[in-house]
């Protein structure tokens, strides 16, 4: 009798409400306004809101995982999480290793930022960039001396303390920092490199890619993606 009761309980637990598939969303958590860890120790930012909305539309149960930028692709392919949603530009090199969804953020310019009043030639100076970014690749081929850092924050600190003459990164990341620096920092150049930003997935994960693409397309169609972009990047931001 006991066995039957136990079996029923187990069956009840297992059969319960149909559980949505759990998807682990990997992000860097150090790149505001794309993604950052807020003071409540939660992942916050444009991609947090976007990701939660995409998961709701795709009927997925999403949890957020923070991982260093350096190892964000290796840890995706070895299965520690299922997506990369970390302001990652879609490039041909990355596409050889992982797959990307449709863009959820249009191409936006990268910027050079230096201390105000400094006359910097970005093609010969010492330029800081984050390791493994398209900006680091661009600096390396521009003739400037590249200094790489593991986190975006360290690239800014390098300019402030004189270790580098300028920093090269996404304009969306740099602009709030420049605006709040009280004229300490200034934008000295702007170039469009790289494509839009998409969600990274394992190449073998075609089903998840299809679900996310459908969700992204539906957010583009009803305008909610543009609203979200304007909320986090300002009214001047590129939209779809």
């Amino acid at each position, binding site marked *: 009798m006991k066995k039957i009761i136990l079996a029923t309980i187990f069956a009840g637990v297992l059969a319960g409400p149909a559980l949505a598939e759990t998807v682990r969303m990997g992000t860097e958590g150090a790149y*505001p306004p794309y993604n950052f*860890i807020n*003071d409540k*120790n939660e992942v916050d930012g444009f991609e947090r809101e976007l990701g939660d909305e995409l998961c709701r539309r795709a009927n997925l*149960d999403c949890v957020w995982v923070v991982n260093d930028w350096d190892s964000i692709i290796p840890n995706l392919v070895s*299965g520690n999480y299922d997506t990369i949603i970390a302001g990652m530009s879609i490039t041909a090199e990355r596409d050889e290793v992982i797959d990307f969804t449709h863009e959820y953020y249009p191409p936006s310019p990268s910027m050079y930022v230096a201390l105000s009043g400094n006359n910097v030639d970005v093609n010969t100076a010492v330029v800081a960039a984050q390791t493994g970014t398209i900006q680091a690749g661009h600096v390396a081929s521009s003739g400037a001396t590249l200094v790489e850092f593991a986190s975006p924050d360290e690239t800014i600190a390098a300019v402030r303390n004189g270790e580098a003459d300028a920093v090269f990164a996404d304009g969306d990341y740099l602009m709030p920092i420049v605006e709040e620096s009280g004229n300490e920092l200034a934008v000295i150049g702007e170039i469009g490199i790289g494509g839009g930003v998409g969600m990274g997935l394992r190449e073998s994960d075609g089903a998840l890619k299809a679900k996310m693409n459908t969700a992204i397309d539906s957010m583009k169609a009803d305008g909610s993606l543009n609203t979200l972009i304007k909320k986090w990047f300002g009214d001047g931001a590129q939209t779809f």
Partner: protein
Amino acid sequence: MLSCVNPDQISGLAWLGCYLSTAKHMAFYQSFLIVLLLIAAVAPLAILLGLLSASASRARFFLIRLPGTLYIAMVRGIPDIVFFLFVPLALDQGIEYLRHRSLCSDQTGSVWQGNDFVVCDIAKMPLSSASQWVHDFYGFALAVVAFALVFGAFAGNVIAGAMAAVPKAQLETAEAYGMTRRQVYWRIMFRQMWIYALPGLSNLWMILIKATPLLFLLGIQDIVYWARELGGAKTSAFTYPHPDWRIWYFLGLLVFYLMMTWVSERGFTYLNKQFSRGQSMAINPQKEGA
């Protein structure tokens, strides 16, 4: 009680009080416990591995001696960082591979699909649906194994040396009294070797304390991760914007590690006294002119 509802309207000490008690700072304070927990878990495991490998490396039978000496030589010769990166990865993928083979035996394809390491959903370790603390605990356990393997080999070498340092005359005397090899080992050698092992083990302990920031390499949010994350300049996207404060956070870590050293030194002085009891003066490092 501080009211931290509108941090932009308060200043001075009240602001600092609110800032230092955010959920993010609580996670920072907790990470100190993680470091202490790591040391507490690794130290006994490393001693145990050390004892096993040291005893094995001194065994009479070649087949027991070989794994002992091989383990000690291998870990001592390969850079620590390679082990710290290799062991958790190999263990994790090894466990998932075995679970995949046994739980999803109907799937015959390779777990390697191009670049991807893909096991079936129920073979994942831990399961994707498991709560975050399970993932954290699993990562921590892998780190403990990696640390224990590395420090166990160093401890094995120290202990093997200490065993060899116990005066042979005492062991021979014990045998002359009719003790078996096992009795000689447990009653004479095992009890006397600690005083010889202590300087080496105390050195290892200090190295272990200093090596804990390697947790950060293994993706565990330890004190170094949080010091960098909290110290970095914050724009007004955050509730508590501030300039680059990393130097203060790292200064805090410096004080923490110095405190750990100070406490450890006192502990080892005490242990040295304990193990020296009943030893002859010639091998008592505490006595002057020894």
